[in-house]
């Protein structure tokens, strides 16, 4: 009697799992591969990896830099290479943010900082930066707040799929960058640290 019940339970469980996998394949994996990609299906990732000789497709994104007063962040609309997936787009945006910006903009991130990896789980983005982000950081609460939130606010403002951002350093979770801001958990967008003269509205920055 009990064995029969158990067998039945296993069968029901297996079937449920099968259904879930089917739904996942049908609605999530396949559409991503073949669905909304406007470029020829296979070409997009390749074009992303190798710089196209001609002008590659670009999007506008709001990147956060140190504001005039040196105490807040200011959003500036800039061109960023387009990518098909959220993770890849996030990577492009952070890479752009890490580049030395044209005058008079000042980056909130230490020069020499590189993006090691970026991955998403749920609405959380994990941004793994090279150790320069901490070792070359000049220190001070204000400067640390600006560095961290230039990444957090830039990603959450441009990519609504990203709700929170955690910064990793050299592949590891860290307490802080320079002894102040708690980086042990993902951080949400925080507009307290930005100038009140709102950044030019970007197509996706309507939340919060």
């Amino acid at each position, binding site marked *: 009697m009990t064995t029969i019940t158990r067998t039945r339970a296993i069968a029901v469980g297996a079937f449920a799992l099968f259904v879930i996998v089917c739904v996942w394949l049908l609605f999530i994996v396949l559409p991503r591969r073949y669905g909304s990609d406007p470029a020829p299906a296979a070409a997009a990732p390749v074009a992303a990896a190798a710089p196209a000789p001609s002008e590659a497709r670009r999007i506008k994104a709001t990147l956060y830099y*140190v504001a*005039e*007063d*040196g*105490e807040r962040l200011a959003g500036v609309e800039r061109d960023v290479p387009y990518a098909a997936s959220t993770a890849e787009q996030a990577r492009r945006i952070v890479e752009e943010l890490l580049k030395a910006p044209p005058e008079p903009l*000042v*980056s*909130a991130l230490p020069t020499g900082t590189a993006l090691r990896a970026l991955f998403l789980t749920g609405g959380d983005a994990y941004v793994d930066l090279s150790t320069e982000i901490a070792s070359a950081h*000049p*220190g*001070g*609460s*204000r*400067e640390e*707040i*600006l560095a961290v939130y230039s990444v957090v606010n830039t990603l959450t403002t441009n990519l609504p799929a990203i709700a929170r951002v955690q910064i990793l350093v050299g592949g590891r979770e860290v*307490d*802080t960058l*320079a*002894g*102040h*801001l*708690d*980086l*042990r*958990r993902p*951080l*949400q967008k925080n507009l*307290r640290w930005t100038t009140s003269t709102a950044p030019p509205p970007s197509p996706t920055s309507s939340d919060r």
Partner: protein
Amino acid sequence: MLLRSLLALAVLAGLQPTAPPRSEVASYTLLSREGRRTLPVRVAGNVEMVALDEVAKLLNISVREEANGLVLSLPSRQNVVLSTSQGLASAAGRVISLPAAPMRDGRAWFVPVDAIGRAIAPTYGTKLELRKPSRLIILGDLRVPQVVARHETSGGAARVTVDIQPPTPHTVSQDAKSLTVRFEADALDAQLPGAIGRELVSAIRQGEGPADVAVDLGPRFGSFRSADQPGDRGATRLVIDIFSPSGEAPPPPPPVESLPLPEFSPAGSVRTIVIDPGHGGDERGVRGQAGTLEKDVTLNVARRLKTAIETKLGIRTILTRDADRTITLDERTAVANNNKADLFISLHANGSRRTSATGAEIFYLSLAEYGEEAARIALGESDAVPVFGGGTREIEVILWDMAQARHINRSAEFGKVVEAALREKLPTSPRGVQEAPLRVLVGANMPAVLVEMGFLTNAQEERALSGDARQGDIVQALFDAVVKFREALR
């Protein structure tokens, strides 16, 4: 190159450039029924290490070395395993983190002293206690009360206040040159001022017996009277008033702040303040154009603030570091929690890529980043110890990690008081008190703020911050804030 110039600076200042593996550190004392024994300490990478052999001998532990680590067999028949590759231990099925991995020197192993408190003590069987601030290891059921003595003068009288935790019976007796306070205890965990050199009291020191405190009398001693009063958090406060010979200035009832009313709420007074000079050691913080280092400014101001508060207010004041050394953020918070501080002030100096940025800033913890749990704690709902599925233990851990949530309103109030006081004396950011997820504040179990005293990256402010006058203004402002905050609590 940077390193070299730092080294050169350190050498110029007559300091040792880096902490050598065997720098001089006060040893620990093991107290047991058998008496006192000394456990030497060495410092490696800013972690206090003790020889495992010695610990084993003192605590009757046998040690064997295995592939995965050092296995300690305790008298309780429990095992503790210390990983040799990282700062981890396992005891009674729990994994415990330690500040460093064991180190080998020749054939001897050295382990972090925290291994005694965190890994060995909980599974030791017999009571075993590590008191880091007082550098004591207490084995067995010994009575070792904490005894903190202070000295103040007012008019022609002197007052010695001794806070005793837990309350311990004691007697005060007088002989030719001193008063002896004898406690019914096995030893004392005492913080005594030592030499004072005043006309009524010349020193307060450890007495002859193991549980004696001696108050050495000065040339103008006439008479004394002593009384016990209820102290803070169930402690006893022994107050000894010392007068010059009668005829001169009759003993007025001692005035000033010390009216130890029984307290209605434990947070209703300020007895202990912990001041945290930001950064230190290898971690120098911001460096100004002219070379001013944040870690030096914070330490200078902290020392002066301590002196001001202790001498003028008689509040016990502790620094998280009183030297140029590296300590972790957790250790800073731990100093405040372990000393049951009523206020925590972390001092910093700011930096910005734009040299135009100026002005002091005041921060307290922002809870938004810590989720609903923190909000619940802040609302006081945690006191009811909610029955989540897993029992109470995990809940306690979470509470401790976010201890600051319970004090958030007081922290905000104190922040406002600090801001107003600073604004009166020095350039202060127009933004007022701000909230941020600051790591050093999260675990603080008392009202806590972080003060950025100004921007070292601004040439003018750097000059001011490195000078006596501005530092004095900051000290005065913070002092005023403490006075105001204390009054508001009454």
